[in-house]
């Protein structure tokens, strides 16, 4: 006689939310360590980092030199790296949810190129704007233009690559290549018209680097990124539902059109602001969400915050590498992320080959 067993009612089977919560706690810890490491990492040795940090908060006192190194040189760089890393990873995850496709990345599909075009146009052509507008927009002009550039490219990309709510990988990547080529060409044309001063700005900016980070730059882009990061979790229910298709998302009560518009705005804001201060940094947006989805599942409510944390950590570590390998010179951080992210992307491609060819 066979004994029938009760159906397995273990309450946590298939539930990865606790895992996601544990990962978040771990990532917060790692991020703090990474930030402290990055603050202590630099050409100027024997700096009392902890002392300077405490002094900045009004506890104790250290030399003016240490204060300057920690608060005026390293801190803006660390904060920029963390914010930009978070922005790139979260915008990657949102873009992948929007396109229902794990291979979407702001760098690969032309969004960064579009934002870069906006930024270059603002740097070079901004001089032609009426003085009143220039004074009004001030340093926000570049961030605003990068946002508009990124937004327009995402919108065009979505129109071209999506039919009846479906995006094929091939169309998406090819449309991205075309858009990047077009915006790249126009950007090149504009660079031709730039003055020597502007050219220096452009070269510096185009390297994809956090080396030029200053408080002044961070103040223009930081709030935009912060707003995008804080509002991204509100998209999570819609992005989850969209994974089942546009029609199903609508059945589940999502206002699909509004949700797509908001997602595109969110991606454009994050990428635009990030590109405006650091130039294009690739692959963070694809590697980070992919790794996290692998271990904690695709639910966006826990995926997006963890992407922000891991994105920040990855960029801080990449920045430390970029400052070390060819010291005393520095490698643009974009080269470091591409060196790690490129092979990783190929690995994802290989793993998903059957799905992509189908």
């Amino acid at each position: 006689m066979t004994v029938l067993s009760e159906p397995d009612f273990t309450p946590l089977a298939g539930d990865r939310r606790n895992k996601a919560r544990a990962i978040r706690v771990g990532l917060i810890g790692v991020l703090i360590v990474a930030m402290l490491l990055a603050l202590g990492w630099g050409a100027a040795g024997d700096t009392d980092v902890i002392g300077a940090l405490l002094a900045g908060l009004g506890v104790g006192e250290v030399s003016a030199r240490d204060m300057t190194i920690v608060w005026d040189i390293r801190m803006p760089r660390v904060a920029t790296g963390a914010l930009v890393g978070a922005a790139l990873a979260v915008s990657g995850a949102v873009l992948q949810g929007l396109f229902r496709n794990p291979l979407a990345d702001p760098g690969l599909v032309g969004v960064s190129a579009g934002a870069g075009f906006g930024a270059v146009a603002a740097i070079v052509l901004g001089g032609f704007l009426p003085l009143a507008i220039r004074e009004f927009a001030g340093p926000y002009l570049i961030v605003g233009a990068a946002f508009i550039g990124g937004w327009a490219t995402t919108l065009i990309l979505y129109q071209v690559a999506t039919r009846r709510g479906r995006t094929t990988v091939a169309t998406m990547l090819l449309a991205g290549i075309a858009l990047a080529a077009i915006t790249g060409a126009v950007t090149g044309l504009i660079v031709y018209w730039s003055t020597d001063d502007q050219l220096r700005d452009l070269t510096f900016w185009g390297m994809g680097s956090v080396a030029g980070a200053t408080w002044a730059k961070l103040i223009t882009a930081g709030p935009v990124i912060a707003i995008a990061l804080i509002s991204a979790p509100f998209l999570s229910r819609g992005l989850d539902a969209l994974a089942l298709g546009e029609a199903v998302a609508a059945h589940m009560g999502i206002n699909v059109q509004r949700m797509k518009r908001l997602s595109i705005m969110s991606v454009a804001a994050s990428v635009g602001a990030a590109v405006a201060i650091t130039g294009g940094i690739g692959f963070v947006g694809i590697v980070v969400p992919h790794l996290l989805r692998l271990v904690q599942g695709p639910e966006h409510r826990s995926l997006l915050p963890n992407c922000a944390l891991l994105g920040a950590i990855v960029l801080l570590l990449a920045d430390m590498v970029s400052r070390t390998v060819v010291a005393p010179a520095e490698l643009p951080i974009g080269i470091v992320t591409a060196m790690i992210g490129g092979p990783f992307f190929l690995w994802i491609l290989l793993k998903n080959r059957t799905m992509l060819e189908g």
Partner: protein
Amino acid sequence: MLSATDISVSFGKRPVLNSVCFTANAGELHAIVGPNGSGKTTLLRAMTGDLTATGQTLINGTDIADLSPAELAQRRAVLPQSGNIAFPFTVLELVRLGLHAGMPSRAGFDPNLPQKALTRVGLAGFEGRFVQDLSGGERQRVQLARVLVQIWEPVLNGAPRWLFLDEPVSALDIGHQLIVMQLARDYAEAGGGVVAVMHDLNLTAMFADRITLLNAGHVRATGRPDEVLTDGDLSACYGCALRTNTPPPFGGKWILPQAIANRTHVGA
């Protein structure tokens, strides 16, 4: 009550539905049958608000065009004929997506609902499996569990809720076909409304309270099973000789293809 009047849909220049009228009552399982391409899915999509169609659909007296997606989601749930899933969800995670659909907050939900729904469709113990690793029939039942979770209570604040099922048993074995059809009946008997697109006429005859027979974008017949399932209408619509019968213990209609008359059983 669900009532659709003068629904017309064209794709490009080609008309797919011509002034179709459709009424279903709460407390009943209403099946839509008809040959491939007759417009069953299109009618369902028009009534669930997927498509902009001419005509009007009222759900419990309210025009669906006047309801927000969230308000609609609280009143009806839809099982599509097919679908693909972009990311690797576990069974539990996927079913849980239906949990707060259309609701403003996550509060006040029974956390065990996904597991209850999975048990109902015969998938207890599948919570931790990945959806993409399941068989076709298992996947169809997971989606049904998600849909059930969305409108678990058949009646909410005195108003019936509506289940729209597009071929809910097409991928299922005979045992699970019966389980799912019984589940749909139970939902109707508890006061909800069920509209199901069906291909299996005998299963339809066994479980449906009402049937609408669609052919080439027109309603050919609508009513109780014994009114709709007639030799003439069925044979004309499906383009093959069909004969209905009423086997004694069942008493309802039973449909047999007449091609069977020209064949000898292999074992005979």
